[in-house]
């Protein structure tokens, strides 16, 4: 094993150009995939922060005793998909409406008594935010005897949720596509490198080297290349990210959300995957060039 390890190191030194090409290719591929992941994660964050605005208003029948409201709240809290429930009394409701329509104060001048009902503002857990789930919950709420009427945001918010899901879906699809493309490109490059060295492989076989003996240093090299390429790709991304994000956050004054880098876990996963790709690329290419 130590022998193979030494041979791998020697081999990398003997083929600096080929190794550099492979590592650069892996680094660029990782850069592409992780740049997109970063973009996607942050875009999702932003959209999620909007989506938090989606809430269901459940208006109560008049004259529900104050004592029952606590129990009702707990009941709704237990419904599937509910994240939290907030009671909004009719007085609070009117104040909010007035704030909202402060451009038309004349509308409220003639009001003798508060025409609004008490209400619950219900936030749903993010994963349940699609039109079907919202409508399901709405139906359950409407079935409650205490509830008079249910309203869920504006129509565009429901549509927006769909589009968000579409965005997510295409994002994942695109991420998948990019990953596959990266794997292809890396495998292609490794194949090309081994093609360049096929004579050498052939000579080793002719002088009696077993396949495992020939392959061992290549595998080690593949792993080193993958890990190194992945690390370099992420490092480049991180530096670019630092430079860009500080500029962006300044010029857009986006105080309400912070651009975040990939988590350590994702970071680790990417390097692990890139290592696997390096190994796999070697495996498949070696198989081809040692076949006959």
């Amino acid at each position: 094993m130590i022998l193979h390890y030494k041979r791998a190191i020697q081999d990398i030194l003997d083929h600096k150009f080929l190794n550099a090409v492979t590592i650069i290719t892996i680094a660029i591929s990782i850069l592409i995939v992780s740049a997109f992941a970063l973009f996607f994660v942050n875009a999702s964050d932003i959209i999620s922060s909007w989506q938090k605005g989606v809430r269901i208003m459940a208006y109560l029948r008049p004259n529900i005793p104050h004592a029952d409201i606590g129990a009702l709240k707990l009941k709704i809290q237990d419904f599937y998909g509910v994240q939290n429930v907030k009671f909004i009394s009719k007085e609070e409701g009117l104040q909010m409406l007035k704030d909202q329509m402060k451009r038309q104060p004349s509308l409220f001048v003639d009001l003798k008594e508060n025409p609004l009902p008490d209400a619950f503002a219900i936030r749903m857990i993010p994963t349940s935010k699609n039109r079907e789930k919202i409508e399901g919950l709405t139906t359950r709420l409407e079935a409650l005897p205490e509830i008079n009427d249910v309203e869920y945001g504006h129509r565009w918010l429901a549509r927006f949720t769909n589009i968000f899901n579409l965005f997510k879906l295409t994002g994942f699809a695109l991420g998948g596509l990019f990953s596959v493309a990266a794997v292809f490109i890396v495998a292609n490059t490794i194949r090309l490198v081994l093609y360049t060295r096929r004579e050498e492989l052939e000579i080793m076989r002719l002088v009696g080297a077993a396949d495992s003996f020939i392959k061992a240093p290549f595998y080690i090299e593949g792993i080193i290349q993958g890990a190194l390429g992945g690390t370099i790709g992420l490092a480049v991304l991180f530096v670019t990210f630092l430079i860009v994000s500080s500029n962006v956050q300044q010029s857009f004054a986006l105080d309400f959300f912070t651009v975040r880098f990939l988590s350590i876990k994702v970071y680790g996963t990417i390097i692990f995957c890139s290592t696997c790709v390096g190994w796999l690329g070697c495996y498949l290419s070696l198989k081809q060039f040692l076949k006959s």
Partner: protein
Amino acid sequence: MIDTQSKNSIIQIFRVYKKYGGKHALTDVTLDIPKNDSLLISGPSGAGKTTLLKLLYLAEKVSAGQVLVDGMNLARISRKRIPFLRRKLGIIFQDYKLIPTKTVFDNVAIVLEAMGTKRRLIQKKVKSVLRTVGMEERINSFPPILSGGEQQRVAVARAVVGDPIIILADEPTGSLDSDSANIIIELLKKFHTRGTTLVIATHDKELLNKIGGRIVHLKQGCLQPSA
């Protein structure tokens, strides 16, 4: 059947044909090489000498016929056992087949590494064999900068470093002046006296005369009746 012909045979070639596409490279070749024989295969350019050697180390498969090497039937040998066969052979290739990106030392050492020889022993053996062929000064050079003759001597060194039981030499002195050639010839002879079987393909009359041994003639793939 062929096994019984001679218990002493280390290589048996029986009614072998080799076709490359439409081209007949070997036609009905039968040869029996006893242990510790010294066989010289002569013949003009394109006669099939290299092809015959290739069949012995399984770089090519026969189109028809049987080849046995040290008791192994090469038609039935599994892929995994091929390295095992080749480690018994010391092969001097006509085009040397040195790895251009490895030093002379590494080119020779790889044979021993593949056999699992200890690191320290490898150092010693490789240096000693390179000294024998007169290449100890170029131990850290890469083959492409060596002269033709120097490359050939490295190729010889690699072939013999593993103490093979059979040496297959394809034109082993083709690029060498007669002094250098004599050194190689002496080396091969030394192995022969130690019990190694020699199979040498050449058209060099000097080599044929000097090395001694049985001579067979190939012509257009056919073994000529020995004159």
